[in-house]
């Protein structure tokens, strides 16, 4: 049985449905990320797990114990640790008292409180700063205090609500790995909320992508990147070219589908995952920029080759990025080798049919 089970969770704010009948399971020791744009319901879901919001319908079961249906369990009785977006380190308490707060409430012996608090501070790399006030710490240090406070009671469940969004980019990237290894070392089950897809991919075992209160797709980072469930997921994770078109001919036993687009009568696409592709339906031919191949002259023995004009070309260090106009449609391509062609010159694109997904 899963360690955290969310069953048919519904949360309404006045008339707005924030979380729409969501089901979700998190395994013991797993780190799961709720990913989505702002307003998608990810934070509300997390707050329901914490008990900071009371669900309108559904149940939440943590470690076999119902949190809602058999009497609402107050956050203080759920045995969870939580890290908030704006740290929420209490400004009127020293670092030590901030971290020790929960232990003192458990009426742990004084000696133990001290030992465990200092241990937790050591763990997050704040050893020796226990007598400071939060105002004497940097943003990154305050975030570590918040983390130590959440970890100190050894909670079975750790909830993190965009904990890195207030940090600068460099520190953010470093902290991702630190948090992940810390949580794994302590063997905690963690739910992590973020709108940053790169963060989600680095930190989580599995990602649940949310949109307008629904979970659209759950899977590991490679699964979601390679096989997005729909256009929304593909757009949210990584960069994707979307070319709208109509299906002319279904798979009919082959592994390709024939699609008519604005710039070409015939684009061949992978039939993978589209068994129901019926002729006439509007779809999006989707391909990642790194899967678009670029040639100075027409390549031979390839399908889906189109001539285009370079609209923009950008040098980004380890690769080149092209915006290519093909009969009025803009296609992005990422190339890791040097190409001498400049803006305004002609170029040939090859879209490997096996990498052209059909999404709706």
């Amino acid at each position, binding site marked *: 049985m899963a360690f955290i089970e969310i069953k048919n969770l519904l949360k309404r704010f006045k008339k707005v449905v924030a979380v729409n009948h969501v089901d979700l399971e998190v395994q013991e020791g797993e780190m799961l990320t709720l990913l989505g744009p702002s307003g998608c319901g990810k934070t509300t879901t997390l707050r329901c797990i914490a008990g900071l919001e009371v669900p309108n319908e559904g149940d939440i079961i943590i470690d076999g114990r119902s949190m809602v249906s058999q009497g609402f369990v*107050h*956050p203080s009785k759920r045995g969870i640790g939580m890290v908030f*977006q704006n740290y929420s380190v*209490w400004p009127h308490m020293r670092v030590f008292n901030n971290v020790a707060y*929960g232990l003192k*409430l458990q009426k742990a012996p004084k000696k133990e409180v001290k030992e465990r608090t200092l241990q937790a501070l050591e763990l997050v790399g704040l050893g020796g700063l226990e007598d400071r006030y939060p105002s004497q710490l940097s943003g990154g240090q305050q975030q570590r205090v918040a983390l130590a406070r959440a970890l100190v009671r050894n909670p079975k469940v750790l909830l993190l609500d965009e904990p890195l969004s207030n940090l600068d980019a460099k520190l953010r990237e470093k902290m991702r790995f630190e948090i992940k290894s810390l949580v794994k070392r302590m063997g905690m089950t963690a739910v992590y909320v973020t709108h940053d897809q790169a963060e989600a991919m680095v930190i989580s075992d599995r990602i649940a992508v949310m949109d307008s209160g629904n979970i659209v797709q759950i899977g590991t980072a490679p699964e979601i990147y390679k096989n997005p469930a729909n256009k929304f997921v593909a757009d949210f994770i990584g960069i994707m070219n979307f070319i709208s078109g109509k299906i002319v001919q279904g798979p009919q036993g082959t592994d390709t589908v024939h699609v008519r687009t604005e710039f070409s009568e015939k684009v061949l696409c992978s039939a993978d995952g589209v068994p129901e592709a019926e002729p006439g339906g509007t779809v999006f031919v989707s391909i990642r920029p790194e899967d678009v191949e670029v040639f100075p002259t027409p390549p031979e023995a390839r399908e889906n080759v189109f001539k285009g004009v370079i609209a923009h070309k950008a040098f980004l260090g380890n690769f080149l990025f092209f915006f290519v106009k093909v009969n009025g449609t803009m296609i992005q391509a990422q190339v890791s080798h040097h190409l001498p062609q400049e803006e305004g010159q002609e170029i040939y694109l090859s879209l490997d049919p096996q990498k052209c997904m059909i999404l709706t």
Partner: protein
Amino acid sequence: MSRGNVILSAILWSIVALLILYPLSILLRESVIISGTDAWGIGNYLEFFQDPYYLKVLGKTLLLSTFVLLTTTIVGVPLAYILARYRHRGKTVFTALMLLPIVLPAFAGVFAFIIFFGKYGTLNLLLMETGFFKQPINFIFGLHGLVFVQALHMLPFIVLGLSAGFTNIDPSFEEAAEVEGASSFRRFITVTLPLCTPSYMAGAVIVFLWPFTDWLTPMILGQVDILPSVAYINIAYHFTDMHRKYMGIVAVVISAVFCISLFLLVRWWVEKKKYTGLSKGTTSEGRVIEPGPLLKTGAYAYMILIAFIVLLIPVVLGLSAFSRRWVFEPFPTYWTLENFRLILLESPILIKNSFLFSGIALVFGVLFGLPAAYLIVRTRVPGKDALDFIITLMLAFPGIALGVGYLLAFWDTIPLAKYWVIMPLALFARRLPYFLRMAHASYLQLDISLEEAAEVSGAGRFRTFMTISLPLLLKGVLVGVMMFFIMAFQEISTAVFLYRGGWETLPIGIYLNWHRGMEFGIAAAMAFLMIAITFVLLLIASRIGGNMLKAAWSTDEE
């Protein structure tokens, strides 16, 4: 919604019902009684609006309000701008001085100005000594004097609101206007001032309503045909003529209705117009300008002039308090402690009463205000907005109306007015918004996730409040406590209807000494004492608050 919150809400509502709604409903009921009969109807109101005398009074009160608002605005706009924007020395001292009139009792100012600006007051005597003036000039008695005294008393409301507005505007709004090529004057008129109108209006409405509340200043300055004074005279002096009493009550109800309507109208408008949400984060200091030498000199002169007038109040009262028989002399010549001996040794009861009543009212205020602020900001209990609304209305509610309402309501059925506890109860009801608003505002600024973090860490709701919310709210709560106590300490409009022999407070003592034949020395000594006490209270509160908070909030530069 937890049951605890509902019970809390029920308790707070019953207090509001008993101490605010019930007396006001009685007041309304009395206003429709036709004297000499058992009938009731709107006859009294019809008479009010048909009688040329009452109409004249209403018109004159509106005129007074307009003049007071105009004066405070003309004086206050440059002052607020200088305080908020110019880099100058002594900013704290000047700001504190400009705000002084708000904490001084209104009548203290009148006494001081009569002594200084009166017919044979200091200024006139000095002028006549020069020989250029044969006759004394009437500086103070009359409508112009009334405008002057009331405007000075209300000036802080304009300056406070506007300078906060000037400071809080996102500098980029003005910078954008500058980049577009607007001159500094044009920028001020077209961008800065319009952006500040919401904060200006919030203060302006309080200023405008003051003449509808202040009954004592007009009476002292011989302008009795102002609405609250007329109401006071009708009710307090004519208890034998029942019809005049009812007309007084009608006048009270009409000014109360007028005050509340205007207050609501402006509040609604301000809410609609708030621009603050439009900008991304602002700098704490706002835009500060280094003015040119000429402008700077002018600014200093302007501030010093106003500071001088403000300081006249404590200085003149001090001179008067430590002297006797200060008449027909520009400055006193006979120094004595006799006034203080009389107050402190022969009737210390006034001081004791003032502290006792205000202190008890303060305890009530905190016990009511903290849970109320919690309920309003942090819960979704039905009716909490109405609770907030009613308490906020008390800001605009004339003290006379409350006093008369209490007198009528708590005499027969609920005979609270026969016991001294009515005094602190009335002070509590009248000054409650001063505490609640502060607690409310600081609660709003308290990030809710700080409390949630405590709950997740295993703390229950009460413990969270005691260990997290309250310490973090301390600053706001302390300021609220201070404002509440000072405002309760100087309260007279309500108390004057309720006191009985032995319950007199300092403000009532001052009034009675003036009333009983111009015992200026003693009245001035009492006023001086009040100013001194108010000052010490302010000092102690900022001391305690400052020290306790400094440790937790200061940022060490590293």
